[in-house]
């Protein structure tokens, strides 16, 4: 098995190996530029009102946790501002939930279409082209022996039991380059190299990607309002004088003052 050596036609090199490599590199370049073109405007879809509501929720949370450090009247004033009859949390929030945004805002859909267009479509087209033109060639040999388990990985498109595993076919080479070129590309393009694996992940799990941007502000408002109403104000300074006297007494005794 290890004795025979395959002699590959030099035409295979000229008409398969080189064109295939070139085609893949060019396609990668194209997707890269398309990606940069489409994603040029940064996602500044956040409205001032939405930021305000987000920050207000944080501030209300702080009021709940740290309210004991301010006097009761001040606390009540703030509580009323947030959770009162006409308070901020009694109004309908401006922030729309992600489902609503999807339904009313066409740009969200368009964005997704664009992502698909730049990501998956060229890849599928390229796969078809490669399948059509370059199928069934043995184009090289890895310089080390491999176990037979690598056969489906390295010899895609050729089903020959007698062929040594270290030979690889054009189709496998294509797949290898498709994912392996990212590292080389990241040397040239500093930022945002199109990452196929990342893109795949996103497509597998669309909810994960939508998580951070979509918040259901209405329920957050309700929660925060209920929480504020549930908490009673306790003034931390109620016994401050006692503690101050204690501290000073102790310091005087210990001759620290």
């Amino acid at each position, binding site marked *: 098995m290890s004795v025979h050596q395959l002699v590959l036609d030099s035409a295979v090199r000229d008409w398969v190996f080189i064109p295939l490599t070139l085609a893949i590199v060019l396609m990668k370049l194209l997707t890269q530029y398309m990606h940069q073109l489409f994603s040029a405007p940064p996602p*500044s879809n*956040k*409205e*001032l009102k939405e*930021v*305000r509501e987000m*920050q*207000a929720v*944080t*501030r209300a949370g*702080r*009021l709940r946790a*740290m*309210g004991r*450090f*301010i*006097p009761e009247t*001040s606390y009540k004033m703030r509580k009323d501002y947030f959770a009162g009859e006409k308070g901020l949390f009694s109004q309908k929030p401006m922030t729309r939930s992600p489902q609503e945004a999807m339904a009313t805002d066409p740009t969200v859909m368009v964005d997704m279409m664009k992502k698909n267009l730049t990501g998956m479509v060229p890849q599928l087209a390229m796969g078809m082209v490669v399948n059509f033109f370059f199928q069934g060639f043995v184009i090289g040999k890895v310089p080390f022996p491999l176990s037979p388990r690598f056969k489906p990985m390295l010899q895609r498109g050729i089903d020959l039991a007698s062929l040594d595993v270290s030979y690889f076919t054009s189709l496998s080479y294509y797949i290898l380059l498709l994912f392996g070129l990212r590292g080389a590309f990241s040397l040239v393009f*500093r930022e945002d190299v199109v990452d196929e694996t990342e893109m795949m992940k996103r497509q597998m799990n669309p909810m994960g990607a939508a998580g951070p941007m979509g918040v259901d502000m209405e329920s957050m408002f309700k929660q925060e309002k209920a929480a504020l109403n549930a908490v009673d104000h306790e003034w*931390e*300074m*109620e*016994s*401050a*004088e*006692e*503690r*101050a*006297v204690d*501290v*000073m*007494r102790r*310091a*005087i005794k210990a001759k*620290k*003052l």
Partner: protein
Amino acid sequence: MEGELEEVERQLRGAKGVPSAESLIRYLRLMRDLHIRDSPTVARYGNILLRHYRSHLSEEELWTVHEQVAIAALDSHALPFAASVVRAINRRFPDSVRAKRLQGMYFEAAGDYGRAEDVYRDILVGDNTNETALKRLVALQRSQGDTPAAIDAMKKYLDVFSNDKDAWEELADMYLEVLNYRQAAFCMEELLMLSPHNSSFYVRYADILYTIGGPTNYKTARSYYSKAIELTMGGSLRALFGVLACCAHITEKVSLQDARSRAQIELPEVTTQALLRIYKQHAPDKLPFVEPILAKLAGQSERP
């Protein structure tokens, strides 16, 4: 990290001729990380670094350093140098908001407030949630001395970004400038909630309450001064004097009932003791001046 900074500074000062690229880079990096404002030095070393060792910096750090040096140069009013750096940044990142902001800051430093405002408004048209541009607008009014306008701009900013500690602090200062103590107290309350362990906020809040005056406010102020004393282990003289001043104004008698009222009665006495001890130890020559003041304050609080 501070120790490291000192070491690098020593290296830089000891260097003959042009200091080495490494120590310059390290110095600027430390200054960035530690948020230390020593603009003239940063501008000087940054100038050397950018002139002699551009190639020693990676692409990312090169432009971070550019930004840092530009701001330092503006801060130390080295306008021609700042202009060249800002221009370089704008040439490299023509559409960047951060570059535009630097442009605006340059106009501000040059005293061309109208153009600076145009730049910031232009940024806000593109992205109306840009925090820094909103804040620059406040600074713009403040540096022109128009405190009421600055207050309005700050209110607009804080209405959205209500978790910004520095902004609340600045607003409190501005309210104090226009003698609006109630609003200043409101800002201090926000600050108290933002960092309840900072004793200076307690003292300042109590100061404001004391200034507003009135029986309830004196009592509240006394509580906050007491809290500051607790936090500083009696080390804050301002808080100690504050307690005494408040006690002098609180005339209402408390009967010995519980621990709290006992503490309120004992408070002036113990505070006076603490103050006397501190003066005896650290500034004995000032004792003759302090003693009569303390006696006067004590006399006031004992008066029915």
